[in-house]
């Protein structure tokens, strides 16, 4: 334990040391940039035009919008903590919530040190970003036109950071109630490094191979949902079922918490999808609208399917439907019309409902249905984007066609294969070195007491 603490302390100290160096570097870079801009402007255009077009093209509306969107996406992580926390047994409520919440600390720092650079930094072989932007070196307040021409580069960085925080937290639902906290922290860092950052680069990074292929993923269907869903499957296979799975009752201990969490997720999702337009305008409005419609349609789809088949319209069913619909619309949210989003929502709700039902028969203990909702929902969304996408909504997109569907399929398969294999290997290594599971005694006692020395409730 001491070793871990020392390493963390060392990381922080080196981070601060680097910051000082970097602050000096940054001023140097800004000066250099200014020189380069003036010389290039002078050589290319008339000096008078150079005066008319200022160096900074920051749009205050876009910037204000993206600041709010980043904050909205941040809220999804504690929302997810509530969503998952309500679904576990009461002895594990804090442990489960902590697995989401702590990502706000761990991933934030990892993203600053090297994560952002790996994902979005200058391309290496279409596979990964270089470390040129490590410690946010060169990530300043001027826009980076490759990603977002009208907002400060740092704002783009923090918006993307919120996605990186949320994604590994999504996986925790699969292995709820049995993961050792120390090993989880290690998993969080290595998963971000070896799965999230490369995938984000493939799909969103300049010169990433899926981006070059023309695959459409507006707000992270591949990078966030398919990646977390398939990695969740890998974790379930490595870590095994909970003690007493299928023998004991393991009902959710507080669905009101889950409802509150779902509401916060839905709310934050507006930032997630509309914000992925990276500007305030027609596209962000369209994404906002289809996001909401798909979620609503999926609530009805899941609720009705469960009502017909199981005889009761459950609250947890409606909440699960909402999340399934939001997941399904994510990749297409910037490319489809409102009517298409109704179909995507219904398809997401129904397919996820049946996927979750199937889990029972397969005998996997995907405790909170990450594979069934995020993995399957993400796939449904990515494929349906290939069907429903239209350039009427987004001229930068494409029209639904077999060719596009094929590209979507290639990118889905690539994301599944990559995230499954790499997660599986990472987990096996962590298991060998530190052990993934808590001991039987700790599991019986619950994560709250055994991992954190606290209890969620005292009444």
């Amino acid at each position, binding site marked *: 334990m001491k070793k871990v603490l020392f390493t963390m302390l060392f990381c922080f100290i080196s981070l601060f040391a680097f910051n000082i160096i970097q602050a000096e570097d940054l001023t140097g870079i800004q000066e250099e940039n200014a020189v380069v801009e003036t010389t290039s402007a002078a050589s290319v255009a008339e000096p008078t035009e150079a005066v008319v077009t200022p160096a900074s093209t920051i749009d205050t509306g876009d910037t204000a919008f993206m600041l709010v969107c980043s904050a909205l996406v941040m809220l999804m992580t504690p929302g997810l903590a509530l969503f998952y926390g309500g679904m576990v047994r009461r002895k594990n409520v804090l442990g489960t919530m902590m697995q989401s919440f702590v990502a706000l600390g761990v991933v934030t720092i990892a993203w600053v040190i090297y994560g952002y650079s790996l994902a979005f930094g200058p391309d290496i072989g279409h596979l990964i970003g270089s470390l040129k932007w490590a410690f946010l070196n060169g990530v300043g307040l001027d826009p980076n036109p490759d990603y977002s021409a009208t907002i400060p580069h740092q704002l783009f960085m923090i918006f993307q950071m919120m996605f990186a925080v949320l994604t590994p937290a999504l996986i925790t639902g699969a292995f709820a109630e049995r993961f050792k906290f120390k090993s989880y922290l290690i998993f969080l860092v290595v998963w971000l490094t070896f799965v999230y950052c490369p995938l984000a680069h493939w799909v969103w990074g300049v010169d990433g191979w899926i981006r070059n292929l023309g695959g459409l993923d507006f707000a992270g269907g591949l990078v966030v949902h398919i990646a977390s869903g398939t990695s969740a499957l890998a974790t379930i296979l490595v870590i095994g079922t909970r003690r007493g799975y299928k023998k004991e*009752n393991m*009902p*959710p201990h507080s669905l009101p918490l889950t409802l509150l969490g779902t509401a916060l997720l839905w709310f934050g999702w507006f930032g997630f999808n509309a914000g992925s337009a990276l500007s305030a305008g027609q596209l962000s409005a369209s994404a906002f609208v289809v996001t909401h419609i798909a979620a609503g349609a999926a609530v009805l789809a899941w609720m009705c399917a469960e009502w017909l088949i*199981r005889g*009761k319209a*459950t609250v947890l069913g409606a909440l*699960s439907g909402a999340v399934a619909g939001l997941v399904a619309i994510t990749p297409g949210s910037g490319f489809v019309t409102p009517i298409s989003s109704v179909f995507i929502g219904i398809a997401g709700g129904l397919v996820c409902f049946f996927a*979750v039902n199937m889990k*029972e028969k397969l005998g996997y203990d995907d405790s909170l*249905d990450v594979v069934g909702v995020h993995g399957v929902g993400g796939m449904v969304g990515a494929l349906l984007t290939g069907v429903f996408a239209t350039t009427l909504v987004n001229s930068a997109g494409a029209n639904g066609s077999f060719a596009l569907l094929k590209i979507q399929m290639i990118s889905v398969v690539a994301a599944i294969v990559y995230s499954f294999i790499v997660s599986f290997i990472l987990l096996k290594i962590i298991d060998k070195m530190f052990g993934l599971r808590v001991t039987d005694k700790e599991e019986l006692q619950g994560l709250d007491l055994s991992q954190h020395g606290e209890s969620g409730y005292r009444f």
Partner: protein
Amino acid sequence: MKKVSAIIKPYMVEDVKNALKAIDVNGLTKSNVEGFGKQGGHKEIYRSKEYCVQFVVKAKIEVIVQDEMVDKVIDVIIKTTRSGEIGDGKIFVYPVERVIRIRTGEEGDKAI
């Protein structure tokens, strides 16, 4: 002195309290309990997974009364709570050795 204890349906507690007050019972203790009996459990569904919850939520009330009051109290409880269906509950009567009021130190009937 006797203790009359009854396991009843939770939503009956208020009615029983009022009915007992009307026959001058001046104290009652209530607790929330779970248990199983003939009534069996009920089914709950979470994400299509069905759980059989075997412990049914019940309320337990306890009153301490003078011996001659016991039958009256039992009558009142039965009249208030009987629906004729499985799950109405049960009444138990125990002897009580001593009752002491802490404030004054009074003992026996005076302390009830």
